[in-house]
C-alpha cells in the first residue's frame, strides 16, 4: 500500500449527548503511517472523537470511511451505518488503548494477549503464541507473561494493553490519553513503546497531553476545543508558530 493511502476519513461529524453537541462538524483525514496527535482542553470532545471511530459511540451526522470503506455514510444529514458484517470487518482493523488500560484482571498477561486472536480470529495457539511472545519481548514484559495485571505497575499494564491490541495485527491504533493515569516516571516506557510503533509505520491517532511526544513523534497535530478542530499543523509549526488565539493560550498554559 502506498504511503499516501487515506486510512481514516471523517467528514462533518456531529455528535450530541442529550441534545448537548459535543462534536460540531469535525472533519479529518489520516494517511497511512501518519501519527496524528490530538490535543485540547478536557471536555473538548477528544475521547468522543476516538470513540465514534470504533463505534463505542454512534455519530448523529456525517460520514466515516476506513481504508475506503464506509463505516457510516451521510444520508439526508443523518449518519447511516454499514451492515453488521461490514462494521465487523472495518472494526477488526482498528484497536484502541484506553486511559484506564482495561486489561482483563482475571487473565494473566499472556492470556490477555491471546484472548482475542484465539476467540475472535479463531487462530491456532501455535500460530499466535510466537507473535504474542515477540510482542512481550519488544515491550520488555516477557518475564511478566504469567503474572496477573494487578501485580504490574500502571506503566507495565499500559504496555500490556498496547501489546494486547497489537496482537490483533491492526492497521490503525487509537490511543486515548494512554499516559494520563500514570505517575510521571512511568510514562517514559509507554511513550517509548508508542514511539517505536510510530517508527514501524503504524497509523495512529493519539489523544495526549504529552507535548514532547506530540512535538517529536507526531506527523500532524490537531488542536480541539468545544467540539471543533481549531487548528491543524505540522508539529514544528504548531508549537513554534501557532496561528489561533485559543491554541496560543492553551500552549502557554501547557508549557509553563
Amino acid at each position: 500500500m502506498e504511503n499516501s493511502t487515506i486510512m481514516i476519513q471523517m467528514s462533518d461529524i456531529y455528535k450530541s449527548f442529550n441534545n448537548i453537541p459535543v462534536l460540531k462538524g469535525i472533519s479529518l483525514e489520516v494517511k497511512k503511517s501518519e501519527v496524528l496527535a490530538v490535543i485540547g482542553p478536557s471536555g473538548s470532545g477528544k475521547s468522543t472523537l476516538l470513540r465514534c471511530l470504533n463505534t463505542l459511540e454512534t455519530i448523529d451526522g456525517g460520514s466515516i470511511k476506513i481504508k475506503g470503506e464506509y463505516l457510516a455514510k451521510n444520508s439526508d444529514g443523518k449518519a447511516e451505518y454499514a451492515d453488521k458484517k461490514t462494521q465487523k470487518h472495518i472494526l477488526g482493523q482498528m484497536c484502541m488503548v484506553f486511559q484506564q488500560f482495561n486489561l482483563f484482571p482475571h487473565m494473566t498477561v499472556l492470556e490477555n494477549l491471546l484472548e482475542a486472536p484465539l476467540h475472535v480470529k479463531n487462530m491456532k495457539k501455535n500460530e499466535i503464541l510466537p507473535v504474542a511472545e515477540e510482542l512481550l519481548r519488544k515491550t520488555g514484559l516477557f518475564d511478566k507473561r504469567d503474572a496477573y495485571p494487578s501485580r504490574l505497575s500502571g506503566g507495565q499494564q499500559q504496555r500490556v494493553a498496547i501489546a494486547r491490541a497489537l496482537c490483533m495485527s491492526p492497521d490503525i491504533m487509537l490511543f486515548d490519553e494512554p499516559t494520563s493515569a500514570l505517575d510521571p516516571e512511568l510514562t517514559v516506557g509507554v511513550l517509548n513503546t508508542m514511539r517505536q510503533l510510530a517508527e514501524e509505520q503504524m497509523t495512529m491517532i493519539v489523544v495526549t497531553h504529552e507535548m514532547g511526544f506530540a512535538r517529536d513523534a507526531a506527523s500532524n497535530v490537531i488542536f480541539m476545543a468545544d467540539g471543533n478542530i481549531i487548528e491543524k499543523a505540522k508539529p514544528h509549526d504548531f508549537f513554534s508558530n501557532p496561528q489561533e488565539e485559543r491554541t496560543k493560550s492553551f500552549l502557554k498554559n501547557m508549557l509553563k
Partner: protein
Amino acid sequence: MHNILNTIALMLEGTETTLQIFFITLVLSIPIGMLVSLARLSRLKPVSWFMELYIWIMRGTPLMLQLLFVYFALPMAGIKLSDITAALLAFTLNYAAYFAEIFRAGIQSINRGQYEAAKTLGMSYTQTMRRIILPQVIRRVLPPISNETINLVKDTSLIYILAMNDLLRVARTIVQREFDMTPFVVAAVFYLAMTFVLTWIFKRLEAHYGKYEV
C-alpha cells in the same frame, strides 16, 4: 447408648431429605438466578419489568407463605404435585430471585471499560459475557452466594410445616415421643456440620477465583 444410635440413625434419614431439598434447590436456582439477572438487565423493558415484579414478589413475601401456597393452593387449582416437587418449586423460585439480585449487583459492579475493551477487540456480546464479565462476577458474588447458601441449609427446615420428614421434623417427633431434648442438640450439630462444610468449600472457591487479586 443403643437409644442414641437409634436416634442418630433416624435423624440421618431426615438429613437425607434436608440435603436433597438443599442440593436440588441450589443446582436449579443458581443458573435460573443467573438467567433472571440477565433478563432483569435486558434492554427490552417488558422483560426487565416482568423480572422485577417476580423478584419483588419472591423477596417481598415470606418463604413460608410461598411454600403453603404451592402446597395447598395449587392443588385447589387442579395442579397436583408430589410433596417434594412442591417444596422444590417454592424453594427454587424463591432462591432464584435472591440469586438473581446478587448476580445483577455483581454484573453492574464490573467496570464499563471491560465491555469496551472486549468490544474493541471484536468480541461478541455472548463472548464478552461468558469469557470476560461472568468470571469476574463469580469472584465478586461468591461471598453473598455463600451467605445465601448457608441460609438455604437452615431454610430447608421450613418444610417442617409440610408433612415431610426432614431433619428438624424427625428431631421433634423423637423429642415429643421420648421427652428427651438430645435430638434437638443432635439436629443443631448436624446443621452446624453442614454449614461448616459449606463455609470451607466457599473459602476454597474464593481463594481459587481470587488468585488474580493482589
